[in-house]
């Protein structure tokens, strides 16, 4: 018995060391920076100063919520169609969905920028069609579009997984009890795929709210999201402490929203991540 637990401990030790070094320690650093001033003495001043960033917080949350909602609206039906498609079509769709994920996020965002730029492909195409010259870069729409484009697969995949696990007998039972297609969707399929929806929402919302790259490139510098703010604080040793405080608050906010979402899924044991 004793021997076995030693072996088990040894097997787990690389992970333990790894998580201590790269997960626990950085978190402690963040905490430490957030609660100290430049001289290293304890202070709440950093946290108190965050009130000036409240507008940034609100805007970031707003953008991410909109992007997450649109991803859900696009992603849910897509995941449903994929789960119902023939094996062949399903594989093709899966590959199409995953393919962009193999390309670096930076490159994808740059490409989107090239497409949407003034004089870029989309705008010159529209002008040729006779539309007025439109500006995309620097609008809220472009930033949200960037979030949707970059994170949509993270919405579709967990929902798709829970769809394929859904027993077809429940769908048949619903039809048997008088549900047409739409009723079956809302009375049976959606409630039974809630774990997938929660995973998807989490996996889109969290990177959306913390992104800085998308807003810089597609927002044309006119939107300062939380991610951008944090990045800027950390570029200067003087403002490290403010940056850490913002990070800390955001981390707590995300943890709270995750906890709330888990409440919706029967204790959260079925979360597909």
């Amino acid at each position, binding site marked *: 018995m004793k021997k076995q637990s030693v072996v088990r401990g040894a097997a787990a030790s690389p992970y333990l060391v790894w998580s201590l070094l790269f997960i626990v320690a950085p978190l402690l650093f963040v905490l430490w920076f957030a609660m100290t001033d430049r001289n290293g003495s304890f202070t709440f001043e950093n946290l108190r100063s965050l009130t000036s960033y409240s507008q940034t917080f609100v805007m970031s949350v707003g953008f991410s919520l909109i992007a997450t909602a649109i991803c859900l609206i696009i992603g849910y039906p897509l995941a449903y169609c994929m789960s119902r498609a023939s094996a062949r079509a399903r594989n093709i769709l899966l590959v199409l969905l995953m393919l962009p994920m193999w390309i670096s996020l930076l490159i994808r965002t740059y490409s989107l920028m090239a497409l949407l730029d003034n004089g870029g492909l989309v705008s010159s195409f529209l002008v040729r069609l006779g539309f007025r010259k439109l500006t995309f870069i620097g609008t809220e729409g472009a930033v949200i579009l960037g979030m949707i484009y970059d994170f949509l697969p993270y919405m579709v995949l967990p929902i798709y997984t829970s769809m394929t696990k859904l*027993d077809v*007998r*429940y769908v*048949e*039972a*619903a*039809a*048997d*009890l*008088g*549900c*047409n297609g739409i*009723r079956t969707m809302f*009375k*049976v399929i959606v*409630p*039974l795929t*809630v774990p997938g929806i929660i995973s998807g929402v989490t996996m889109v919302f969290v990177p959306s709210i913390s992104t800085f790259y998308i807003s810089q490139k597609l927002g044309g510098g006119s939107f300062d999201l939380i991610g951008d703010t944090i990045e800027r604080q950390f570029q200067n040793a003087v403002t490290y402490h403010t940056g850490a405080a913002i990070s800390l608050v955001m981390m707590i906010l995300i943890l709270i929203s995750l906890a709330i979402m888990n409440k919706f899924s029967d204790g959260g044991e079925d979360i597909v991540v």
Partner: protein
Amino acid sequence: MNKDVLIRLNGISKSFDGETVLDNMDLEIHDKEFITLLGPSGCGKTTTLRIIGGFETPDTGDVFFDGERINDMPPYRRQVNTVFQRYALFPHLNVFDNIAFGLRVRKTPSGEIRTKVKEMLELVNLRGFERRKVSTLSGGQQQRVAIARALINQPKVLLLDEPLAALDLKLRKDMQVELKNIQQQTGITFIFVTHDQEEALSMSDTVVVMAGGRIQQIGSPTDIYNEPVNAFVADFIGESNILDGVMRRDFAVRFAGHEFVCVDKGFDANEAVDVVIRPEDVDVVAPEAGMLKGEVTGVTFKGVHYEIIVDVQGFKWMIQSTDYVSEGQTIGLSIDPDAIHIMKKSEFSGMFGDYSSFSDEFDELDKLPEEEAEESEEE
């Protein structure tokens, strides 16, 4: 057309991936009838049920409900409800919401829903279970919820797909009685699918025996048992000794080297036939008093009776008797004329009814893979 006929299947064929599951099937189901589709796994009984429920469309042939062709009518518009194999209760809803599901879809006022769910819970003996989660119920309780969920919609027909297969023996017997009572109380037509012949015989008004995608025989349980049409039916329903025989003339048949008086007629003179004799219809007598004589090769105590295997000129008979005989003993067999049942030769002749390879152990071994196959088929 008979006014009493509620569902009519006309020349139904269905195949999956080139494999024929139903082969030109005709069937009439009468109003308020308890009808059972009985057969081994893969005989097409579940597919028949799914065609009536609307979950499969026949390749050829027509389905009529109350005189109306319903081939392409989706399940949700049919006046039919199903008790699924392993129930398919909605895991996200409690007992009350599961049972109320159909009424809510029909926008029934909530007061009426409450009364009706209460009635249903009484009917299936689950008073006070409203708020329970379905995952906390036992198999038998889930079964009852599934029945209540279907019956509350007052369907014209209730389809039951092996609903008792997952229950243990004792519970199964109780549920058989209960289902029969519910059917008589509600006056709803029950179409019941099973591979258990005893279940079929004890519950049904009409039994439909199926094999290889075709109906072998339709009749009352007593007809099916006493007058099987071929060797398959004789063997599938109860135990049978099936022998090759020759019909000498009306009321006289020759088999096992002996001519017997029987009660069957209407065959050609010297027509080759299958002769069925049920194990309980053979009397054990002294060797010299018997029509046939044989040596006992096996005796098994079954509680109510002994199961005796007797070798008569190389053919092993099974006999059920309350009198003990010992292995190796020579005994005489006596058979009354009305215990002899004559059948026309069929594709199943010679495949069943000889107990030469019989042993309880084999029987058990045979059953296991079959039941597993049944499960995976329905998956």
